[in-house]
């Protein structure tokens, strides 16, 4: 059985979706599955179709990530192996988190069990608390509050829906950057953002930028401080 076919079964991917490609990073212990819906890229590169990336349930000890292009997934139902364009996690992972909470685990225990990092933990928690995950279980929401709020504030990187990202992507926003990669990424993101009329495309760019900040957090203290100064300014009543 080929890798892609094996992943098709392990991830319970349904037609018309298929696993086009699988990459296993043994050093980072990550599995990346690239999905297509059979009518699109088939392994070919379509520069105009940027892909979303969602964290899914682990396969064994390996963190699993699903990659699928945005237009395709929007046409589809809420398959467990896909996610919302606004999320970094699949519907399947969110459901498992909720199941674990409903079975009595504390949120911190769930995150440890499912190997969910602090940034993703905050996003899932926020989605539950704000009702985005369509759970009417108010007890569950209350139980989330029991966990130490310091956990969620431990990350200094703003959540994806924070206005600081929109400000950063404005063409005229002054921002001092030290890393070459971030300069180039932000220049491209600002260009795309100015041209994009599709809100999902804009979200995708914000997610990508935020992912960069998470990945390089330790080298971006100067830049993160500027983002947080911006948040502070808005909170204190300054003009966004």
């Amino acid at each position, binding site marked *: 059985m080929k890798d892609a076919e094996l992943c098709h079964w392990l991830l319970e991917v349904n037609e018309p979706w298929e696993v086009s*490609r699988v*990459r296993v*990073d043994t*050093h*980072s212990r*990550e599995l*990346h599955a*690239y999905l297509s819906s059979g009518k699109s890229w088939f*392994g*070919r*590169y379509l*520069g105009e179709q*940027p*892909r979303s990336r969602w964290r899914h349930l682990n396969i064994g000890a390996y963190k699993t990530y699903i*990659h699928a292009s945005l237009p395709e997934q929007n046409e589809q139902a809420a398959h467990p192996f896909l996610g919302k364009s606004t999320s970094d996690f699949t519907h399947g992972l969110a459901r498992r988190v909720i199941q674990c909470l409903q079975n009595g685990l504390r949120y911190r225990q769930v995150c440890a069990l499912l190997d969910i990092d602090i940034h993703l933990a905050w996003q899932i928690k926020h989605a539950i608390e704000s009702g985005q995950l369509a759970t009417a279980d108010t007890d569950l929401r209350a139980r989330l509050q029991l966990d130490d709020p310091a956990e969620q504030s431990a990350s200094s990187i703003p959540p994806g829906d924070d206005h600081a990202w929109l400000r950063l992507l404005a063409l005229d926003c002054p*921002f*001092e*950057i030290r*890393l*070459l*990669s*971030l*300069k*180039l*990424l*932000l*220049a*491209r993101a*600002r*260009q795309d953002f100015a041209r994009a009329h599709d809100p999902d495309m804009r979200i995708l760019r914000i997610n*990508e930028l935020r*992912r*960069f900040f998470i*990945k*390089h957090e*330790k*080298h971006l203290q100067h830049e993160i401080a500027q983002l947080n100064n911006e948040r502070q300014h808005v909170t204190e009543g300054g003009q966004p």
Partner: protein
Amino acid sequence: MSNASATSALLDLRQASALIERGETLAIAGHLDCLTALPRGNWIGGTTPYFMADEGGTCRLDRVFVQPFGPQVGEILCYDRQRLPHMLEDAPENGFSIVILPAASAVLEDYAREAPNYPDMYIKPIVGWVAGVHLDQLGSAQAQVIDGRSGHCYSDQAIVLHIPLPPEQTALVHAVNLFTPGTGPTLRFDETGFAARECLIDGVRGSLLELIRARDIDTRLPLVADYCGAMINVSIQALESEPGLVSFYAPVFAGVDYRFADAVEDYSARFLQAMPSDGGPILFGCNCILNYLYSQLQGRQTARLTGPITFGEVAYQLLNQTAVYLTLEHS
């Protein structure tokens, strides 16, 4: 990655062969005759006889520049035009990639145009260079890249070395570009491409060639665009290869504002000032053949940055007239 492995150096073939046979993973630059004489092993290569060695810029047909990355690490992959866009999907989540692309190839043109939009671009570190030939062989020889495992040479594929790093290490990409936009008019192009006839000159449509001639612009100076503080050059390749046409070594991108650069006096001294003395060890470096030629770097040093002199540099995207290096840092 161990810091105790061999260091980058210009070596004779016996020394380079010894490293290969010891199992080191290497990126090697040299004349085609040298590269094809090396034993098979875990290395990638590209053609250029020009180097920035410890003793300064030099052209050698009997030596190769070797950049080591440790014993038996990484994965070597070749990319044709179809697979090229997926290059960074193959890269490790934590690590870096070294790419060598042959000059005057479709695969280079694709990379130059499309790399900024490739999946994982700017997220995963990638550096590299464009292979070329001795300037006396322009038009008669073809730039090549080599897969050291098989000894196969390619003029139509990119070769990439993907190297993972342990969680406590990270690779950072740097570019040293001494050029800054001058005080001339702002140029904006309608289309992304390696050549242009017209553009918006301070918002007014006009001929780029006529602008260059009317202002007597020194075409050794590149066009420079400001990418959120990163100065990105596009070098002029030729005027009037066709009537009215200006061609470039890298594409100009639509919607980006460019200006011709100010001249840089005493490149070598300015480079020494611009090169930071702090930071982690340099794993990889390269500098542009146009800097070597226009700034007369033969016999002159560029601080601790050594490596091949190249026909285009990659720091994520294709650059011109820029020095590129990669450092290893603690995460």
